[in-house]
């Protein structure tokens, strides 16, 4: 089963990495790389991406003729999606364990950030038990 692990970080909160001391930034980057590498080596990583900052985000809606209407100013929100992982694991518990590990990524002073990681199951095709006769 696949899960998407979303790292939603509060704007203006502790995840303002730019203000950290250099050693803490280095430790955080090393943790994230190592984390992805471990998941990949375990055969659990489907994909992971970091997203650029919310100040570059755009809201787009279709206009009358289907043309994109771009809203240049992104509304102030309390949280933004900084990045995500998609993992393929055997149990939901394993997905939660991975999320907890990500949540404990080191922050200022090397202390765990304990960010809230949103865990959502990725929809899939029908399972065997709902196919008659399977």
């Amino acid at each position: 089963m696949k899960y998407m692990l979303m790292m939603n970080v509060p704007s203006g909160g502790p995840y303002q990495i730019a203000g950290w001391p250099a050693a803490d930034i280095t430790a955080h980057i090393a943790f994230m790389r190592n984390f992805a590498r471990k998941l990949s080596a375990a055969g659990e990583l489907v994909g992971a991406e970091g997203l650029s900052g919310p100040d570059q985000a755009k809201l787009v809606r279709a206009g009358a003729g289907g043309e994109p209407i771009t809203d240049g100013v992104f509304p102030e929100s309390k949280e933004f999606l900084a990045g995500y992982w998609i993992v393929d694991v055997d149990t939901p518990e394993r997905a939660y364990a991975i999320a907890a590990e990500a949540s404990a990524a080191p922050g200022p002073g090397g202390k765990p950030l304990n960010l809230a990681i949103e865990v959502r199951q990725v929809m899939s095709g029908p399972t065997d038990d709902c196919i008659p006769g399977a």
Partner: protein
Amino acid sequence: MTPRLDNSAQDLLRELAPTVLGTLLRRYRNFGGCEDAVQESLIAAAMQWPTQGVPDNPKGWLITVATRRLTDQIRADTARRLREHLVVSLIPADEQIALAADAAGVNERDETLDLYFMCCHPALSESSQIALTLRVVGGLTTGEIARAFLVPEGTMAQRLTRAKHTIESAGRSFPELTADDRAARLPAVLKVLYLIFSEGYTTSGGDELCRLDLSDEAIRVARLLLQLLPDRPEVGGLLALMLLTDARRAARTGPNGELIPLDEQVRSCWNQERISEGKRVLERALGQGVVGPYQVQAAIAALHDEAPSTEATDWPQILALYDVLVRFQDNPMASLSRAIALAMVNGPADGLAALDVLAVDPRLSTHHRLAAARAHLLERTGRHAEAIDQYRRAAQRTTNTPERDYLLLRAARLNDSLVRSS
């Protein structure tokens, strides 16, 4: 597990792929069909050669297999369309091959060359040109190209199929190009090769073990192109630029994938073999008398490669070369690099003044490189608080992770020293 082809046989296959396709296209004209047939012949070779050995005439083997696949496919298509239309049966094609294989008077060089130009057909988008070049000229499989660009294989397969349709619907699928056509399309070919190189050079790599090295591929294909067009100095210029840049690759990233700028790189890690090959190729190109932007950029790269340190770099010469480059092309990034070279010659204040002039260019005003260049020069003048601000601004704007990490760390280190001294 089936035995795998050794590296030299793999290289041979990739080298032969465009020639085989060129031969097939000359006979059958149908680009999509020929291309598929050649890919199938490459797969057949990869499966059969490890156990049966490489045939005495590998090119003839591939042409025979590809032709068989193509005629099978055309027979199937023809059978389907037979009711509408009885078109020319291509069965005699089997006989044609005996006649045409390696026939005298056929300009194989032009055939192969025209594949490069066809892959850079003006009707194609840049991403399609890149994918098609790697597939058709580079002889890579769809899977390899997909992994190199980190997109799903189905997506890449679709991109290639659409590209082939675009070429076919844009006119005769394999038009005879005139010398003028070739001259007009050469810049597009060079640009595509350079984009492939840059894609490989700027991605952090390392994580993806099975990921193909795009920089190496671009260099390999540029070498082939130079063999076909030895008298076009910009082809040599491009190859030299790639070699002289690639020489610094190992020194360019740290253990966590972070970017290491030129002035902090361990120069003994630079690849001397690449540097001397690049310089040889560049000297030959410059000797041909027609200077172009790739040769100028290669000459700048060579000056960096030759320098024992940032301080001992021939900055006046580099500045002079940027002056030449800026005249060739209206490229804001070249102007930005020129401003940095100016700062190295005349001091950071002059560099900052030059950046202020460039900042009115809308292509640069919000670009992360402008902020990064400002930050470096502000740091050198001792305006640390402003430098930190510019580094952070640049970090916020870049979409390249190693670059963002580098800029954040640069700001953090400066900030650390400010905190300590206060």
